[in-house]
């Protein structure tokens, strides 16, 4: 493994977005992973529609909350094609599902994986390199006050409640850390990102990890 790796350096990660007062982080993280997966495959990097996932993904509750696993399962089972964000923009609230014809351009997935990597963060790093940015779910209660630096305390793995994307890791310093993209805008944290210590399942970052295949 390299001592430092970040998919952003490959220009395959879209800009940080802002979910505002909508509890749709689960949709932002899944859509972000699909965007990167296609960019890694050589497609142009572009924002895809989060609102489509919020409105259309069954077994989820839109801005009232949802599950990354159910969202990936919905994408895989229905083979729905995610359209561009510009065609179905984010409204910060639930809405009726817009359907598009099969001939409409969009991006579906071929599969996904969802695993518990706790105590195996080295393998998680290898999966990150192999499959692209990973979707994760963490306990982000203490992230309310986060400004920067490496989160290594005050963050248990007890009750995961927030979905994010892990774009890379940095082991060059004394405290290795994951590079985590959030959906609270670019003014939050480190330009919209958080750094979470590697190796101790801080915030439960390794408990609920998914990869997208396209």
């Amino acid at each position, binding site marked *: 493994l390299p001592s430092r790796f970040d998919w952003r350096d490959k220009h395959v990660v879209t800009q940080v977005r802002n*979910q505002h*007062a909508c*509890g749709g*982080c*689960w949709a932002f993280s899944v859509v972000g992973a699909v965007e990167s997966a296609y960019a890694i495959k050589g497609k142009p990097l572009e924002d895809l529609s989060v609102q489509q996932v919020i409105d259309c993904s069954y077994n989820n*509750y839109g801005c*009232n*909350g*949802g*599950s*990354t*696993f*159910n969202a990936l399962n919905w994408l895989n089972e229905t083979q729905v094609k995610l359209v561009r964000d510009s065609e179905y923009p984010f409204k910060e609230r639930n809405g009726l599902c817009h359907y598009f014809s099969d001939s409409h351009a969009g991006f579906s997935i071929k*599969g996904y*994986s*969802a*695993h*518990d*990597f706790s105590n*195996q963060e080295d*393998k*998680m790093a290898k*999966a990150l390199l*192999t*499959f692209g940015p990973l979707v994760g*779910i963490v306990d*982000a*209660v*203490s992230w*309310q*006050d*986060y*400004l*920067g*630096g*490496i*989160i*290594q*305390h*005050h963050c248990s793995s007890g009750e*995961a*409640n*927030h*979905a994010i994307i892990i774009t890379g890791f940095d082991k060059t*310093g*004394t*405290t290795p850390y994951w590079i985590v993209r959030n959906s*609270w*805008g670019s*003014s*939050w944290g480190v330009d919209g990102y958080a*750094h979470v210590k590697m190796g101790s399942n801080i915030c439960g970052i390794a*408990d*609920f*990890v*998914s*990869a997208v*295949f396209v």
Partner: protein
Amino acid sequence: GPGATSTPTGPRSSEQQAAAFRESRNRHRYLNSLFPRENSTAIYGINQFSYLFPEEFKAIYLRTKTSRFPRYSPEVSMLISNMS
């Protein structure tokens, strides 16, 4: 949906926001006081969420549901590699 908690709706009074902000400041001091000399450790302070009580913050922003994911294992790794 099921499990949904009450989400603060409607305008919040300035007293409420001020109280939440004061509580945030106390929390920041506490969080930053525990490991002051640990290099590169996280710093906590004022941001766009400082005017919310923790329970309000959680009710709005922390609404991801989880289900148990299977353990990652070498066999799974092989399977996934083939699939991808």
